[in-house]
């Protein structure tokens, strides 16, 4: 079972991100379970959503305590919330930021985690460019696909298209695709560096 935890703030589409990820896994024929951290519905409040992906039926109902991957939608949470709680040493970390881990004050991660499991991604900028609104979730999922390989970009694009119809769907898919290629490029660069 592969477990993902998404951290963000109310209004950024954190829960929708987990939902789309679960739909993408479903489309790939896997079992998946997405659920939010069940807070009050307030804009700006810290929000956590979870997604489990497995080849078998998922019966577990506890929150994701030991994630295999973290997606951080809002970098302002980095030093406020215990984001990395339970993350395994081989876990993936994707942070929505144009800055590097060192610039974000997270150099220690570079020593504890394999370099090919870490990425930052300017997902909000990508969203603004393609969607016109600061909704980074689709872009982050695209980046997550490239970083982890846990979910295929085709299934992801289909899931995004299921959630957002028409032009919004196209724009979100464009954002996801752009992020996918950007992270893929980064990973290739990191591998050869």
């Amino acid at each position, binding site marked *: 079972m592969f477990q993902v*935890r998404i951290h963000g703030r109310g209004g950024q589409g954190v829960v929708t991100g*987990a*939902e789309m990820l*679960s*739909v993408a896994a*479903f*489309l790939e024929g896997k*079992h*998946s*379970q*997405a*659920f*939010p*951290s*069940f807070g*009050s519905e307030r804009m700006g409040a*810290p929000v*956590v959503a979870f997604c489990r992906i497995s080849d078998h039926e*998922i*019966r*577990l*109902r*506890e*929150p*994701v*305590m030991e994630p295999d991957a973290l997606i951080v939608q809002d970098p302002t949470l980095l030093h*406020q*919330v*215990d984001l990395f*709680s*339970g993350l395994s040493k081989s876990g993936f970390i994707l942070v929505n930021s144009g800055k590097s881990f060192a610039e974000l004050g997270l150099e220690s991660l570079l020593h504890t985690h394999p370099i090919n499991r870490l990425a930052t991604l300017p997902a909000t900028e990508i969203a603004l460019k393609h969607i016109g609104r600061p909704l980074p979730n689709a872009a982050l999922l695209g980046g997550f696909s490239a970083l982890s390989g846990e979910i295929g970009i085709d299934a992801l694009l289909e899931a995004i298209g299921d959630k957002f119809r028409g032009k919004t769907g196209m724009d979100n898919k464009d954002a996801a695709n752009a992020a996918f290629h950007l992270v893929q490029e980064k990973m290739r660069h990191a591998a050869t560096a």
Partner: protein
Amino acid sequence: MLQQLEGSRAIAQGIALCKPEVVCAYPITPQTHIVEALAEMVRTGELANCEFINVESEFAALSVAIGASAAGARSYTATASQGLLYMCEAVYNAAGLGLPIVMTIGNRAIGAPINIWNDHSDSMAMRDAGWIQLYAETNQEALDLHIQAFKLAEALSCPVMVCVDGFILTHAYERIEIPDKRDVDAFLPPYDPVQVLDCNDPVSIGAMVGPEAFAEVKYLQHRKQLRALELIPEIASAFSARFKRDSGGLVKPYRLEDAETIVVALGSMNGTIKDVIDEMRNEGHAMGSLAIVSFRPFPLDEVRAALVDAKRIVILEKSLSVGLGGPLSDGVRKSLSGTGIKGHTVIAGLGGRAITRKSLMDLFVKAEKDELELLNFLDLDLDIVNGQLEREKETRRSGPVAENVLKSIGTVASRIA
């Protein structure tokens, strides 16, 4: 058709397949997504021939359903927590009148302190109201139980609550098989009321009954529930035959063969319990579990038959009978009368506290070593409790308990569970 859906959306689709004629709604977290989805289906015509009524309170929601049901319409509503308590009087009334209303409970704690998260305090508070209560373990089962609930309710002319863990199920996306419309139509015939407000055959419904017959009328309510003990398995097996999957029934045993320790629980926590049991079985522990689907009527015989060979029973409850223990334990212990089997009540998951594999594993190991009390509280933070008891000892005006406790533990935004 197999789909990846939010639980609430799946339940709403299941309800729509049952063709309710009157749906009344009042918003309360966490059931709201269900009635929102139904509102949309009525507006778009996907759910035709249905009146969707936005009412001013839960008391009105169930009262509208009572009127509609008495006038011969298949009626549905949903609520949770404070909403269920607010309609309490009508909950008893619907059962007393024998109206086959189906209501979803998105299980949630009851305040004070106000809390929007999941536990079973709400439906447990209505356990003696005369409604049948079915608890879903997964969203697939939640959907399936609603289809069975209408059939059961209408067969008995008795209202049915389908209890679905708030957020944990209602807000979770998972794969769900949406039944075929034709199958549901064949399984669930149109509502044929046993009593109806009809101008061609006027009756008075709901008149006063004095001591001369009140006990008999109440006993007949009890008889309906006894009859439900037979009907629930029948309906579940008819469902299984038509829809090719098992859902519902009275109880669901899991790995009971040679089990020395058996865990009994309601609702979604059975999933986590099964995972823990598998893990412990792999390590050689003789563990099993029994999920109770039908809490009212309580299947005393089936529970006894499932548990009778065990050494000890751990009853996990998301509800606290303050001053006594747990309501589920009352039934389980009654079913074990005279067996001498040890029963341990464990109150867990109150107000949305996560029930984790780790905590359960520790608990079950303790149970095997016979280290549990009669009444236990899972993951209770005694430092918090004792801190408040200290404050109360020190000063008469110690202030509001909830505020004190929160002050003492500081910010919780950094916690995952």
